[in-house]
């Protein structure tokens, strides 16, 4: 019996997959592997000492804590943003829509300097907050502010299309069955956009963990207080402590990877729940 060559209805699998793997290897995997191999040149003792000194641990806490908090804040406000952009028609809507992307486009250093100037004690906004005892620039608050700034577009842009997809009729059906607006939001709209919110959260978080440019101008970079991990890595590099730098970087990498994996898993679970067997 001669075998018949089977053609997939979706051609180009091998070619596309090949490019994907080569690309992923060149752009992502090899550089990351370099982090690993450089780290391996240290002994275990030296590695542990490099990644667990109090100053480094404090920076982990700030970097991951502020990133999670900033992503959470962006989930709330990004949702409101997306809501306004999808649901209402108003003059200047197009302008606001494009302003959302500005944190993507702006050089992060520019953003950092601008934020620092405005929120410092003598800045136009900082001056207003000072009598209330609220300090933003050169404190951990400044770090949070910068991370909120750069993370905003992610939640807006992931939630916006999904919210737009929700048919008006579904909400009308809920109202017709006696649900209040709040009940409709909690039981119908929120479950619908939850996977998108989570994606936005994960992206804003990932971006915030790696952010450097905007933060260092506003953070003040006080060791143990407002020093982020990426800055520590740069400091180590400037002192020619390459192994130490990669050691800290690898810890960050593992942390981030695990967190993103959890978020991804959660999201997959959410989506599968509604499409079982479909």
């Amino acid at each position, binding site marked *: 019996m001669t075998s018949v060559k089977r053609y997939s209805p979706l051609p180009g699998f091998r070619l596309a997959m090949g490019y994907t793997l080569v690309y992923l290897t060149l752009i992502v995997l090899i550089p990351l592997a370099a982090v690993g191999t450089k780290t391996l040149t240290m002994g275990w003792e030296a590695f542990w000492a490099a990644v667990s000194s109090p100053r480094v641990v404090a920076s982990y806490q700030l970097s991951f804590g502020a990133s999670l908090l900033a992503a959470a804040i962006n989930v709330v406000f990004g949702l409101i943003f997306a809501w306004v952009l999808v649901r209402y028609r108003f003059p200047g809507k197009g302008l606001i829509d494009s302003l959302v992307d500005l944190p993507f486009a702006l050089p992060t250093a520019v953003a950092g300097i601008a934020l620092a100037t405005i929120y410092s004690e003598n800045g136009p906004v900082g001056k207003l907050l000072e009598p209330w005892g609220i300090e933003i620039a050169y404190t951990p608050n400044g770090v949070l502010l910068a991370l909120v700034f750069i993370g905003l577009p992610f939640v807006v842009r992931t939630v916006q299309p999904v919210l737009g997809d929700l*048919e008006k*009729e*579904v909400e*009308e*059906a*809920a*109202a*017709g*069955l*006696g*649900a*209040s607006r709040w*009940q409709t939001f909690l*039981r*119908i709209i929120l*479950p*619908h956009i939850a996977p998108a919110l989570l994606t936005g959260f994960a992206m804003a978080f990932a971006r915030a963990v790696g952010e450097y440019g905007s933060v260092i101008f506003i953070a003040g970079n006080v060791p143990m207080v407002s020093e982020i991990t990426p800055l520590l890595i740069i400091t180590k590099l400037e002192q020619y402590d390459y192994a130490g730098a990669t050691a800290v970087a690898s810890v960050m990498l593992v942390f981030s990877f695990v967190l993103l994996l959890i978020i991804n898993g959660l999201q997959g679970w959410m989506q599968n*729940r*509604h*499409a*079982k*067997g*479909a």
Partner: protein
Amino acid sequence: MSIAIRNISKQFGAFKALDDVSIDVPSGELVALLGPSGCGKTTLLRIIAGLDFADSGQIVLDGDDASARHVRERHVGFVFQHYALFRHMSIADNVAFGLRVKPRRERLAEADIKRRVKRLLELVQLDWLADRYPSQLSGGQRQRIALARALAVDPKVLLLDEPFGALDAKVRKELRRWLRQLHDEIHVTSVFVTHDQEEALEVSDRVVVINKGKVEQIGTPESVYDHPATPFVANFLGSVNLFHGRVEDGHLHVGNDALALGASEGSDGKAVAFVRPHEFDLVPGWDEQGALAARIVRVVSVGPSAQIELAHGDGKLIEVSLGRDAFRLLGLSEGDRVSLRPRHIRVFPTDALAA
């Protein structure tokens, strides 16, 4: 519960969607709003539900003016053309939704909710699907679930917007028969919107024919079919042959032929006449008086009846439908001359057609 629609008007910009519409739906009746797309029937249904609001006029539910009431407080069940099921909820949760969002003191115990959901799913004959999700159901099943969900809160009125519009022909036919049976069981006052005249005639107790935002005729399926009040209704319900002619001393003159009219039909002057395809008698030859002289163009003899296409004097096509056996007995074939004698003619003065 009865519904009274009083002088409802609604305008979208310059477009008059509804123009002074008044309809009474007695308690327990199943009424069809029938009309071509864009005639305002869905807008009217949404206004009854409280999903849209009229510019003027009243919606009176069970004697109470409900015009200003929110959809939440009107106690109507609404079934959408595209189901509008909650995708992230199981079928049972979909049906239970209306029961679960009630304020705590009115809410049933969870066990009672479960029991009620089960009963409703049995009513729509889909209790075996309780744990599935909407994406796993066929269109017909989804629509029955949507109906069960609407019925869960004991609506006083059931409103259905083209409920079978998105389904294929066979399922459609099954479902509308089933809807009729269901209505005979539970007797909730129902209004459904459709553009399918067959559906309206088959399912409803009464048909409201709407055109361009105005009510053309209200009546039982038989009465609107047999006694259309306007040329629009005659034309819209069922297939029909249209003739332009002149009424003079009790006869309708079409081309060179004169057809006798009943004493009450038509006043003298220009007129349009409608004759349904099954309301003709065929006689071979052109010798018949009071008939249309025509020639057979084409015969399609499939199913219970023969569809015969004929050309009248000036080439105008006439459709005739005749029992297959009766047609065979006549021994006619394509190209033969026949006389067509209408058994029933509806005549309207020409100016009525403009409406």
